[in-house]
């Protein structure tokens, strides 16, 4: 039986996004042209070109990293690490695993769906998802450092480092005090 992790990533709505950006660029370009004239448009194109050229080598490298990380770090291994520990140690492990999990949202959610069926701790699941989304290394390296600059990217990383633990502990407290059952019990 194929587990949810083995299924291919569903096709993103690639065309819709492309159309969205094209429309956004066209619309804002027209507005800017009407307000500030052609020099503003030229300045905008210049700035964009230099940014695209600057981030291209980073993004190219990041794709190689993401590809190898996905090929070398099988989901089954990540899932085993996640279910392995409880207590604060379990949360710290979930946080570390979330930080290094490469790839898009589908893979990470699929992992949580798989975990839910094995009776995993809700705190670890929440900590994992929060770590993956706010302090994921792939995002830091791929997007934040090139686009935000090292200082801002690292400051944000530092300020967010504790968030996955806060969320995980809050989740455990809520479940314990109110007997909530937020995880789907059946495996899809």
């Amino acid at each position: 039986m194929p587990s949810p992790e083995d299924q291919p990533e569903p096709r993103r709505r690639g065309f819709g996004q492309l159309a969205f950006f094209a429309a956004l660029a066209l619309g804002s370009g027209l507005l800017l042209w009407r307000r500030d004239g052609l020099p503003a448009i030229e300045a905008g194109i210049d700035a964009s070109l230099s940014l695209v050229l600057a981030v291209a080598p980073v993004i190219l490298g990041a794709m190689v990293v993401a590809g190898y990380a996905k090929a070398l770090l099988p989901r089954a291994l990540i899932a085993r690490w996640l279910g392995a520990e409880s207590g604060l140690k379990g949360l710290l492990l979930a946080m570390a695993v979330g930080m290094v999990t490469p790839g898009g949202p589908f893979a990470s959610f699929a992992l949580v769906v798989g975990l839910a069926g094995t009776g995993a701790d809700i705190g670890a699941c929440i900590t994992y998802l929060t770590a993956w989304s706010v302090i994921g290394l792939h995002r830091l390296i791929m997007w934040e450092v090139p686009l935000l600059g090292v200082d801002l990217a690292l400051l944000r990383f530092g300020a967010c480092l504790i968030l996955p633990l806060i969320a995980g502990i809050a989740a455990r407290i809520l479940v314990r005090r109110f007997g909530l059952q937020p995880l789907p019990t059946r495996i899809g």
Partner: protein
Amino acid sequence: MLISVVTVWTIALGLAGFALWRRPDAHRPALATGWSMLKPLMLRLPLAILAASFLSQLLPKAAVAQLLGAQSGLPGILLAAIIGGLFPGGPMVSFPIVIAVYQAGAGTPQIVALLTAWSVYAIHRVMAFELPMLGTRFVLFRLAVSLLLPVIAGILAGLLQDALGLPAMLDGGSFALPAPAGGQ
């Protein structure tokens, strides 16, 4: 900028070297994955950056600075968290727009709150993946325990900034935007 190029390619070559040594079968799927991730970006990212560059010139700088500037304090952080939560799309949409807002005069703690809200609440991700895969109950539970995280991040960023003696406005990366033309 150079530092991220070097970091990324060091990691990339390190991983490729490891694969060469221990897992030669991994090269092909790794490069295939990388290519499939890169392909959609090749048109989308330049367009997104262009749109952001125009938008940043259109943004009313005075209003941004007043609402989200460093001196806007906790209300500014709260507002930034709400705005970040409503941001559509993945990183390639949002980062250039976030930079436009930063360049228009938003404060650093406010920008951190905005970025964090966008990654924690992630409306686009909730709709496309989380709701169908994990269900409404889980989504609401996760959002409930995450509700205050962006505000906490904003406050911590301000404290860190003071403690480290960083300037109010950090280096905005390579996204050097043109000064508003404003008829000059």
